[in-house]
Structure formats: structure tokens, C-alpha cells
């Protein structure tokens, strides 16, 4: 029996993740698509798909910190690096396996995130952003200079993981591994925000004094949020390192941190789905622009230089347009579209 509109009779129903049959079918279709995706494309596009999955983990992690707990972080890129270097060090220098390296990367990064999150007790908003920016610079310096561990300016060559005798050597096999990890981590995040911890995060975001009066331990939850978010960054960074087979300090710069912040702003702050949309958008857009400029160059050979230069400009422009016309992100836009079609054609 289905009722018109949002009609729930129990609390369990209210916090259900997949609330309607349409959503259930949609999610199932998405998962099915993700499973067959590597057989539909190859080479370049498979690689882009792999990068999107990794970015989803990172973006969901940052959204827990920034979107749900309301603490801006400009250190996500460096935390990626901590994860990548941890697994690189463990797999190549200590000879441990990938299956130890990646969880360890998550934990070490979580610890690093909690340390750099300590200023969050006193600082909010822009001030916290600058404090986390410091973590970005400090960690970048460490990557370059702590040579016995990070390989200094040379970096570390890391292997792809293996289980038994099977090596995840191709992008396709590695894609499935990353897909499995991504699904687990996204599910964990979706569940996290429905728990006491998740609600505490949101209470802190909405009004930290009220939250404290309600009995939420601000210090504990703020640090916990940094820890969880950094754990995600660490795992994503470790996967990125293994996917590239090479870890160097150049990969984890401020630009990476900013692009992750852009992902969750474009996707939608405080929404897991938004983080996913944002990750897809930010990874796919440059690729689409490259394809378009290549096409354009083929048609008008003289415009090559201009078209490629325009690419950067168009990228910036699209992001600005998004912030002006869709400040609540892609997740919100998606909600609007759903609402429109739900009542179509009688929208009033």
C-alpha cells in the first residue's frame, strides 16, 4: 500500500535509507551499472571511472567534517598524502601487504587529522580554515623532507595489491576492488549520519552552544569528526597511490584540497549524495572539456591554443555559475527535479 506524499507511521520507517520502491530500483540500477561499467569502456574512461570512485571516498569524508560538523578544512589534500605515504611505506619498506597498508593508512591519517583538528576546539569558520591550511603546508614539507620514510623528492614506487596469487594489476580488477571499498565506506557514512554521533555532529554545526547545553561533548565530537574525515582521506589517498603505482609529494598539494572543497560545495554540503555528485562532476568536467576542445581543434585547427587556454576559463566559469544559480549544490537540484516530476503535471 502506498500513500500519496511523505507518509510514515514508525520511527524506523523515517530513518530508512531507501524509502520508496523507485529509490530502491534506482540504487540497484546504479550499482548494476557500476558493476558492468568496466566492460562498457576501457583505457582512458575506465581510468576516469576509477578516479571518480576514489574521489567519492575523499569527498564523502570531507563532507562529514565540513558539511555535517560545519568545520572547514583546507588540509584534505595533505591527509590524502599521509594515507598514500603510509601505505607506500608499509608495502614497500616494511614489506606488508596492501590489506594491512590501506587500513593502516586510514588509521594513521585519522590520528594525524585528530592532531591537526585540535585547534578546532577554539577556532571556527575562516580561522579554522587557516589553521587547517597550516596542516597542509606542514605535511607537504614533511613529505618532501622526511627522506627515509617518504623518499624525499624522489617519491616511492608502490605495487598494486594482490590476494593469494592474484594481482590486481589491471585497471579493471583494481576498479572492482576500489568499488567494493567505496560502497562500504559510503554505506558507513550514510549510516553514521543517522546515529547519535551523526546527530551530534549536526547539532554542533547548527549551534554549538546549544549542542553543548544539550550535553554534547564538543571537544570529543569535533576531534572525532576530524578523525573520521581523515580516515576517509587516508583510505582514498592510499587507493590513489596504489592506482598510480607511484607516490610523490607533488600529488598532494593545496590544489587537491581546494578541489575537494569545491566538490562538496558543488555537490551539496551536508549530503552524502551531494558529495558523490560533486566528485563525479569535478572529475568528469575537465575530461569533458578536453574532449570538446579536441573536437573543436579538429574542426578549426587554428583555434587549438585558444581552445586549450579557454578550457581553464570555462572550468572556472561553470563553477561560478553553479555557486550563483545552485548554491545548495547538485543534491538540492536533484531533489527539485524529483519533486517536480512527482507532482507532474499538477505541480500545485
Amino acid at each position, binding site marked *: 500500500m502506498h500513500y500519496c506524499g511523505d507518509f510514515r507511521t514508525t520511527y524506523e520507517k523515517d530513518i530508512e535509507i531507501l524509502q520508496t520502491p523507485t529509490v530502491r530500483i534506482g540504487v540497484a540500477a546504479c550499482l548494476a551499472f557500476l558493476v558492468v561499467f568496466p566492460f562498457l569502456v*576501457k*583505457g*582512458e574512461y*575506465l*581510468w*576516469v571511472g576509477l*578516479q571518480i570512485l576514489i574521489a567519492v571516498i575523499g569527498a564523502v569524508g570531507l563532507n562529514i567534517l565540513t558539511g555535517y560538523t560545519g568545520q572547514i578544512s583546507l588540509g584534505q589534500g595533505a591527509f590524502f598524502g599521509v594515507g598514500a605515504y603510509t601505505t607506500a611505506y608499509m608495502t614497500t619498506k616494511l614489506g606488508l601487504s596492501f590489506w594491512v597498508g590501506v587500513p593502516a593508512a586510514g588509521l594513521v591519517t585519522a590520528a594525524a587529522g585528530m592532531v591537526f583538528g585540535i585547534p578546532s576546539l577554539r577556532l571556527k569558520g575562516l580561522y579554522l580554515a587557516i589553521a587547517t591550511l597550516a596542516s597542509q603546508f606542514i605535511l607537504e*614539507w614533511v613529505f*618532501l623532507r622526511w627522506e627515509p620514510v617518504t623518499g*624525499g*623528492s*624522489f*617519491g616511492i*614506487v*608502490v605495487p*598494486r595489491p594482490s590476494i593469494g596469487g592474484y594481482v590486481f*594489476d589491471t*585497471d579493471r580488477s583494481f576498479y572492482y576492488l576500489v568499488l567494493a571499498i567505496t560502497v562500504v565506506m559510503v554505506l558507513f557514512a550514510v549510516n553514521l549520519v543517522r546515529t547519535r554521533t551523526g546527530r551530534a555532529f549536526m547539532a554542533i554545526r547548527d549551534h554549538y552552544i546549544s549542542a553543548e547545553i544539550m550535553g554534547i561533548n564538543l571537544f570529543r565530537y569535533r576531534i572525532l569528526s576530524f578523525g573520521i574525515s581523515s580516515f576517509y582521506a587516508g583510505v582514498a589517498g592510499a587507493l590513489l597511490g596504489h592506482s*598510480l*603505482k*607511484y607516490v*610523490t*609529494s*607533488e*600529488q598532494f598539494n593545496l590544489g587537491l584540497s581546494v578541489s575537494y572543497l569545491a566538490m562538496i560545495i558543488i555537490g551539496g554540503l551536508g549530503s552524502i549524495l551531494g558529495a558523490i555528485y560533486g566528485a563525479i562532476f569535478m572529475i568528469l568536467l*575537465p*575530461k569533458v572539456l*578536453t574532449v570538446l576542445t579536441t573536437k573543436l581543434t579538429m574542426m578549426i585547427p587554428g583555434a*587549438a*591554443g585558444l581552445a*586549450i*587556454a579557454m*578550457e*581553464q576559463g570555462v572550468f572556472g566559469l561553470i563553477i561560478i555559475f553553479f555557486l550563483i544559480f545552485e548554491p545548495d549544490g547538485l543534491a538540492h537540484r536533484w531533489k527539485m527535479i524529483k519533486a517536480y516530476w512527482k507532482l507532474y503535471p499538477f505541480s500545485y
Partner: protein
Amino acid sequence: MEQGTPGGAPMADGNTANNHEIREGKEKMKKTMKIAAMVAGLAMVLSGVAFSAGTIRVGHLADLTGPTGDVGKPYAEGVQAYKTYVNAHGGVNGKQIEMQMFDYAYDKNKAVNQYKKYKEDKVVAIEGWGTGDTEALAGFVSADKIPYISASYSAHLTNPAKTPYNFFCAADYTTALRAGLLYLKEGWKEKRAPKIVFIYPNHPYGIAPIKGGKEYAKELGFEILGDEDVSLKAIEANSQLLSVKNKGADFAWIGGTTNSTAVILKDAKKLGLKTKFFSNIWGIDESTPKLAGGAEEGALVMAGSARYGDNVPGMKLLMSVEKTPQVTHYIRGWVSMMVLVEALKRADKKGPITGESVKTALETFRDFDTGGLTPAKITFTSTDHRPFTSVNIMEMQNGKLVIKKTMNLPRKAEWLGL
């Protein structure tokens, strides 16, 4: 690829024709089949012939519009110019080189995306560009067995035990620094130890040669005064150079790019430093007089090639292809393609060209003569990818680069990769 279609099309036509004839009798069908098979067979033979005389696919990643575009463009043009020349003059043993340039604008993600495309296209080698793409792809090229020739001269890429598929055609950054130190020490006449500072950005490219360079400086008897950090994007370097001045350095190493080096030289002149500057391969080139406005007088650069118009045998060909004077980066691009073409020729003679066979061919290079375009002849072995350990030391005099001396360092085993 085009050769495949003629083979396939008659087969398909033959099959549809068969469908009608089944009803008419098996006799006719067999005949049609035979013809179809013959056509297909012929097409395959033809395509086989066409394939062996066909093309060789090579990738080319360049930076034309990104942050290193000012030097990346002439380098890429040198690479392409040599390819065009070879294709117009018989190709590689009759085969044409198909090499599409891709401008990745120094964006690592773009470089990796394009690399995946090249891999899909089954290229047998890639002409690369700078630190960004080379480092990002170092893991991939060794796993996928695709030789990668680039202009990122970090010494760690010369050790095949770590990066077996990376090659380059100039002295590595550390060797260049050592050559500079030796040159300066040879010209040092005073009794006291010469004092030296190292100015470089906190960036893998700047840091790479410092450790090996300092060890050698100590060995030569330099007094090392310390380091100064000048970023690649610096617009002034007053405080760093004031410190150099106060320390009383006789020499200063600059590990930057043309822009940051020009900034350092200008501020040094403004502060009245007596220090002699020597920069790495990317620090000073023909564009420096314009950027530094006269402050570059007397500064040294550890160049990896001849200059346009030099009286060396290899220059005649280059000048007949490219009439307008070019910077040294163009010449190094030209040389890197010359080396790759030679490797393709050698690999082709041995059998089918694959990434592995091109790498093996590159490792057969013993004193390969570039016609004097490089400071020395090129040698690659399976345990040592240092092309040579010689450097053309050039000095800026009245807005022109003047070759002072070609320094030849020993190819020491313990310097490999450091």
C-alpha cells in the same frame, strides 16, 4: 586499422549472399564460400603486407599552454620537427611514425588520462616532458613496459633498478651541479676555501640534486654556507639574497626556472652582490637577457646541448629544417626524438616493435653520435641510464650564451641515481 575493413567487408557480403543460395543448392554455396574465403585470404595477405610497411605509434605529451609552456613549447616543436623530417625521408625503415602531440598543460591528471589513451592505442614509446608527467607516469610505464623519454633530468630516473623504462638525453641535475662545482673549483685561485650557497625552491625539482651536490662540494673543498629557498613563482628574493650577501658567498647555485632565476639575478644586482651565480639547465636560456635586463651578465648555466648555429656536424640538418634561430630546449627536443628514432630503427631490424624491444634497443646505445648536438655521445646500458656525464658550461656575455668549457665527469657507479 583501415586494412582490417577490406578483409571484413567481402566476408560479410559473401555471407548474406549465401543465405539466399542455401535454398538453391549446396553446390553454389560452396563456390561462393570459396570466393569469399579467397577474397578474405587475399585481403589478409594484403593487409599483412600493408601492416609490415605500416606505421609506428608513438605518444607525445607536451606542455604548450601550462606553467612550463615557455620552455615546453620549443622542446615539443623540436621533437615534432625531427619526426616530420624522418617521415619525409623514408621513415623508420620505410615505416611512418604516427605521433600526435597532446598538450596536457602541466596537469598531472590530464597526463595520466592521456597516457591511458596512448596505452589503449598501443604506442611503443612516449616522448614526455617535465617532472609533473614523468613522475606521475613513472610507475605506469615500467609496469606497462612503455619507454618514456622526457626532459625531467632527475638523477633517480637514471637507475634502471628503480625506473627501468625512463630515459632522457642530457646530464642529470646532480651531474650538472657537480660539473659546475668542478669548473668553479678549477678556476679558483685564492688560498682560502671558496664559499658557496644553494638557492632552490622547496620543490622536488629543486631539491633533487642538492644532496649529491653538497657531498661533492665538500669533497672538492668548498665551504658550504647554507641554503636559501626561492620559490618558482617568486617575484622578489631580497631577503634571501641579503642573507647570501651577509654570508659573503663566492658562488651561488640556482636551482630554479628562467623566471625565478631572473628574479634572483636582478635582486642580486640591486643589492650589489659580488657572488658568481651558476644555474641548472632550466634556469638560464636565450630568454634570460629579456627577463633579467642585464643582471644576467657573467652568470653560468649547465647546458645540455649545443646552441643554434654552432659549428657542429648535426647542426646543418637542424638548420636546414628549422630556418629561424631556436633556443637550446628546441635542440634537446630534437635530440630526444633523434635518439628515439634510432632506437625504433634498431628494434625494427630485430623483429616486431614493442615497448620492450624499443627499451632493449635503447640499451644497446654505445657512444651514439648526435653530431655534436649534445656535449658527449650517448650510451645507455641495462644497468645505467645516464646518457653521458658531460655538460656544456655556458656563460651569459652581453646578452648571448657563450660556451666556456665542456666538462666531462667520470661515470662513477656510486653516483648512479643520486
